[in-house]
């Protein structure tokens, strides 16, 4: 049946000077919605590591302190969730994935981001490099809240935000593309918000 339109208004009006920053089908979010597929993990920083793996082997692993010692950047980005909310000008601080991948020798085209709690998401390595992705540990000038993926999450703002895995613990490098958690259940393998690649086959 066709929907019944009402005087219901959502607080998502886009200022006209920013309209071209909103991908098709998106709305501006009022806050910063918290959505997760499981309980918030609470790994103590003393036990936390970020690893790059391939073929079952760990190529390199960093402790929290080691990550903190790496050169970091503060970036301001628009983010777009496949559930249709977008947020402009979000400020993050973290280590560029270029810095992390640059520390290992590898030969792979794809990566699976993996997180505490079992969440995974797949990306082409090309979309993790050349200044397109970060290991982010700070949001809006504050340490990243556990509810939003802290202590650290993947940040890949040019793709739908489910690719920016919360509570990320590493990248598993792969020769072929394999679906992660949501991709297995029908979401798009790539996820370009400007092409509205929400679901497999879009």
């Amino acid at each position, binding site marked *: 049946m066709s929907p019944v339109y009402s005087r219901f208004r*959502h607080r998502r009006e886009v200022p006209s000077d920013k309209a071209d920053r909103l991908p098709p089908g998106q709305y501006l979010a009022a806050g910063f919605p918290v959505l997760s597929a499981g309980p918030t993990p609470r790994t103590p920083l003393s036990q936390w590591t970020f690893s790059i793996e391939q073929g079952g082997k760990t190529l390199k692993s960093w402790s929290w302190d080691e990550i903190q010692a790496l050169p970091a950047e503060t970036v301001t980005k628009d983010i777009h969730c496949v559930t249709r909310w977008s947020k402009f000008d979000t400020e993050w601080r973290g280590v560029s994935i270029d810095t992390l991948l640059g520390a290992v020798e590898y030969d792979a085209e794809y990566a699976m981001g993996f997180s505490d709690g079992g969440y995974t998401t797949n990306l082409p390595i090309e979309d993790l490099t050349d200044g397109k992705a970060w290991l982010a540990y700070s949001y809006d000038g504050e340490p990243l809240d556990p509810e939003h993926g802290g202590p650290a999450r993947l940040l890949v703002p040019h793709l739908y935000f489910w690719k920016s895995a919360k509570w990320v613990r590493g990248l598993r490098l792969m020769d072929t593309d394999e679906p992660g958690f949501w991709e297995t259940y029908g979401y798009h393998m790539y996820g370009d918000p400007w092409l509205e690649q929400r679901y497999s086959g879009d």
Partner: protein
Amino acid sequence: MAGTAVQRRLTWTVATVTSDVRETPSVRTLQLGVPGWTGHRAGQHLDIRLTAEDGYSAERSYSIATAADESVAITVERLDDGEVSPYLTDDLRVGEQLEVRGPIGGYFVWEKADGGPVLLVAGGSGVVPLRAILRERARTGSDAPVRLLYSARSLPDVIYRAELDGYAGLDGVEVSYALTRHRPPGWTGYARRVDAALLAEVAWPASENPLAFVCGPNSFVELAAQGLVGLGYPPGRVKTERFGGT
């Protein structure tokens, strides 16, 4: 499943707001006319869907506030940062329409045949389905003894206050309020959040094989349900319904 009526397939339908009641400054009951409505059970809920002119839509669930056989009504509390509730409590007018789906639920329901004694534990707007249960008990002439423990911020925040106070002295119904933030002068009732000790005072002894319904915010339900299990209630006799926000 012997004896189960064939269920109408659940689909969205357009309902009309036929009347409303301002229960408290931030709580409003909306009576709905739903075409083809074949009735509901006390404790069930409705899903509602609002669609804005630009196509944006939002869905929420609200407990039905009335007994089976009564017109369907929902009671909505306005959450200040809510996206949907302020529209329902402040903007939607009598005569206007909204999409509904229901009635929904088969777990958090009570009917006369379930008997008692019954313990109803409400946290804030969690009282809505429990009030439906109280009304169902009255409607069916059930003699199951029932106790309602209702936690609210203050007396003005108590929803259905006149109706609940009206149960005082009625056979088999006891109502206790726990006011957590403000109390009127001379208040002799509970003045703190529901905890294990408070439950121990109000709840039916486990030996009477009571049936408990707990409804409210997540943490409230968690605490109360654990408290009742701690008093010896079998987990299968403690039914829970957790509310989200917005």
